[in-house]
């Protein structure tokens, strides 16, 4: 073997061992998740049944093919037989698959009937998808909030490490973590009413075997009943535009007591937030405060489309730097767009999602950052007046 060949072999060997050892293969999941609900386990069993049946058929069919290939080859002196039809055999291999299919259809039907039975739920939660976040609203509880990806931008833009830095620069739940997870009680039938504010999304949590499209203007139903408290993660499953890959779902399942405690905590927080809104109406913030809060809010909610530089991604997501809306246009109109959104575009309203103070700050920030320098200061009371609450 020449020296050159050895070099190649060595290089190849290093390359492949590098691939194999670069991360923990032991954690790699090969099969469908069994999940934590009665339905998800039925689904898993059905999956395994189908997989075994297919494997068995595969072994027989491919076995026959490989047998032919091994023993009926011309190079071994095989002479071709001349049979080329048999009604008996054709009927046989039409009938047998039908029987196998029925054997699969029976459990599939019963599982499906279970999945589609939405009756007798104890908790109802409305789930609304929008580009690119989820909104949860608890019926009869007055609790509602948005749930947004919380993985820092630096992680998915690889600013935490070099190109080859790979997994080290990313945290364990990279792209599968949110600021406020959905919280549901264990061992109770929870019904989800799923819809969308803009395009079609799909709410999917593998551990529950729940995947249901969120269609704008229509409401879909799904339900789950989880056995074990814990944290379960999923993702949007229907292509919904630019940040489709960045709207995960996190569900925290709590025991009944913990869930009640959480509800109380939420009620208290809602009341507190309402007070803060009222208070902010009479308060007045100075420019530094506004700009500081504005920048944080902008980076969290606006920068995905309009970019940290304010240059946007035109034409779908226009620049704010030097744009008439954020410079020469009226403050009231600017607030209106941020508060209510702009119909027919990707710009949604943030009135529901942000506090008056945050909107005031973000409008101030947009009118003064990146050299827009209008000097306009916007207060919560202005937002309330212009936002049309």
């Amino acid at each position: 073997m020449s020296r050159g060949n050895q070099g190649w072999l060595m290089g190849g060997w290093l390359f492949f061992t590098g691939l194999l050892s670069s991360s923990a293969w032991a954690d790699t999941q090969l099969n469908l998740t069994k999940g934590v609900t009665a339905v998800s386990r039925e689904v898993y069993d059905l999956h395994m049944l189908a997989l075994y049946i297919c494997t068995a058929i595969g072994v027989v069919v491919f076995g026959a093919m490989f047998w032919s290939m091994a023993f009926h080859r011309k190079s071994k002196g095989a002479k071709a037989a001349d049979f080329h039809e048999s009604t008996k055999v054709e009927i046989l291999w039409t009938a047998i698959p039908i029987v196998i299919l029925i054997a699969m259809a029976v459990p599939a039907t019963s599982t499906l009937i279970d999945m589609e039975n939405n009756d007798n739920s104890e908790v109802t939660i409305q789930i609304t998808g929008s580009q690119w976040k989820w909104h949860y609203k608890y019926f009869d509880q007055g609790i509602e909030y948005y749930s947004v990806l919380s993985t820092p931008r630096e992680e998915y833009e690889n600013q935490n490490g070099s190109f080859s830095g790979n997994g080290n620069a990313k945290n364990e739940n990279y792209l599968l973590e949110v600021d406020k997870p959905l919280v549901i009680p264990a061992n109770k039938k929870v019904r989800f009413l799923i819809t969308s504010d803009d395009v079609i999304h799909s709410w999917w949590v593998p551990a529950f075997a729940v995947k249901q499209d969120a269609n704008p203007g229509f409401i879909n139903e799904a339900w789950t009943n989880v056995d074990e408290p814990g944290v379960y993660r999923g993702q949007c499953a229907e292509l919904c535009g630019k940040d489709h890959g960045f709207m995960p779902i996190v569900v925290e399942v709590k025991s009944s007591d913990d869930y009640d405690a959480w509800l109380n905590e939420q009620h208290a927080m809602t009341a507190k937030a309402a007070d803060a809104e009222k208070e902010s109406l009479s308060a007045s913030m100075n420019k530094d405060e506004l700009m500081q809060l504005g920048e944080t809010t902008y980076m969290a909610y606006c920068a995905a489309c309009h970019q940290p530089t304010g240059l946007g991604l035109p034409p779908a997501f226009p620049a704010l730097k030097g744009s008439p809306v954020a410079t020469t246009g009226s403050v009231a109109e600017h607030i209106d767009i941020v508060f209510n959104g702009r119909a027919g575009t990707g710009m949604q309203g943030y009135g529901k999602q942000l506090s008056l103070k945050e909107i005031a700050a973000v409008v101030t920030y947009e009118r003064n950052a990146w050299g827009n320098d209008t000097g306009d200061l916007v207060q919560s009371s202005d937002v309330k007046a212009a936002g049309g609450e």
Partner: protein
Amino acid sequence: MTTETINESLDDVHNDDHHDHKMTGIKRWLYTTNHKDIGTLYLWFSFIMLLTGGALAMVIRAELFQPGLQIVEPDFFNQLTTVHGLIMVFGAIMPAFTGFANWMIPMMIGAPDMALPRMNNWSFWILPFAFAILLGSFFMESGAPNFGWTFYAPLSTTYSNGSTAFFVFAVHIMGISSIMGAINIVVTIMNLRAPGMTYMKMPLFVWTFFITGYLLIAVMPVLAGVVTMLLTDTYFGTSFFDAAGGGDPVMFQHIFWFFGHPEVYIMILPAFGIVSTIIPAFSRKKLFGYSSMVYATSSIALLSFIVWAHHMFTTGMPLFGELFFMYCTMLIAVPTGVKVFNWVATMWRGSLTFETPMLFSIAFVILFTIGGFSGLMLALTPVDFQYHDTYFVVAHFHYVLVTGSLFSIYAGAYFWLPKWTGHMYNESLAKWHFWCSLISVNLLFFPMHFLGLAGMPRRIPDYALQFADFNKWVSIGGFAFGLSQLIFLAVVIKCIKGGDKAPAKPWDGAEGLEWTVASPAPYHTFSTPPKVD
């Protein structure tokens, strides 16, 4: 099947004098009405599109090589997946099959040409414009379409970017081209068969294209309808798919998949035809169960019209709808199974040799069947809730379209290259192409099953860390598979330029009228129809 007359000599004078002479240079190709020339154009065009779509796929795989956004922005990533899908479906697979139809059907049924040669010219020559428009949109300010090749509303209407009108126009042109091609195939087969060739004596290849032609004529207008509705929703204020105006976004999916499901059979039935020609040839044994193959193909085609909503189980269909579409979909496994069993029975106790066309055909049967297995699993509604829109689906349709349709196209190309060029291709280089493709394509698509089961959604530019290991392998497989296709290009060019002289019938087990004419096939064949017993 025997022939009496093989006559392409100049003595057999046509009424139309200049018909016998071909023009030279570019005009030959622009003005041609010759089925062989047009077949060649289709085949080269589809190969260029394959490489184009493949290049897009390699950028996708480069981005997905490891977690994080490395190479492209998410919006551009969506443009890549969208255009990759459109190009591969409408630009690579479908035109390749039309190329085979043009080249082979007249020669297989003993016809002098296609029935509608001028329309044939037009149906090809509008295609490059369609794809120029589609690819040109990459250079527009807003970029190319970014809503997936399935272009679900309202992402493709209210929320689409500025290139939607170009996308719609391009799809219209592709549709017109396909319809004209299909009409031509159907009319040719119905009217120009040689005396004595009854329907049940036609080669199975011809049967599958005949049925595919009907499918195309039935569903292409539906596609044209749905893109037109999308156009008016986007630009003219209609609300077909907008609930605020009384429409329904899910209706889009119903119409699209009413086209889309027969469409997937449009891309696989001709593959069945090619493989059913090649396996008997290299098994030196007649195709097992010819008539059951014809009936199975027809049943698959008919069933394909009543299974469309299995793409939509998660859209919130009523239980009855889900059950209906689940049962109908499972039923398709029966005729498909019959076909696979028949191929195996054809090989059984044959006298097998393993030239490249046979290798690709055997790989087709095994790997297409794997795609069929995952298709059967996907048909089960409750589990489809878990599989839907994940990499499991991506694995499934790449197994049926790449190792299915594309492999059959390669098998057919190697099989008939001697007839087309008059030279034998380089067998060892072709085997390199086969083995490199076979290994890399499985490295590329098999781990996608695991990724999907583990929960990786499709169409995402970045992913959670537990998906990192497999994605790396998949990307390596992708690059290797992409590069392996250049071997094919080398084989074809070498074969056109020279090589061993091919006899009229280079494969001793091959059957059919095309082998009764010389290699390369003369410019005009069967000016006088042969007689078939």
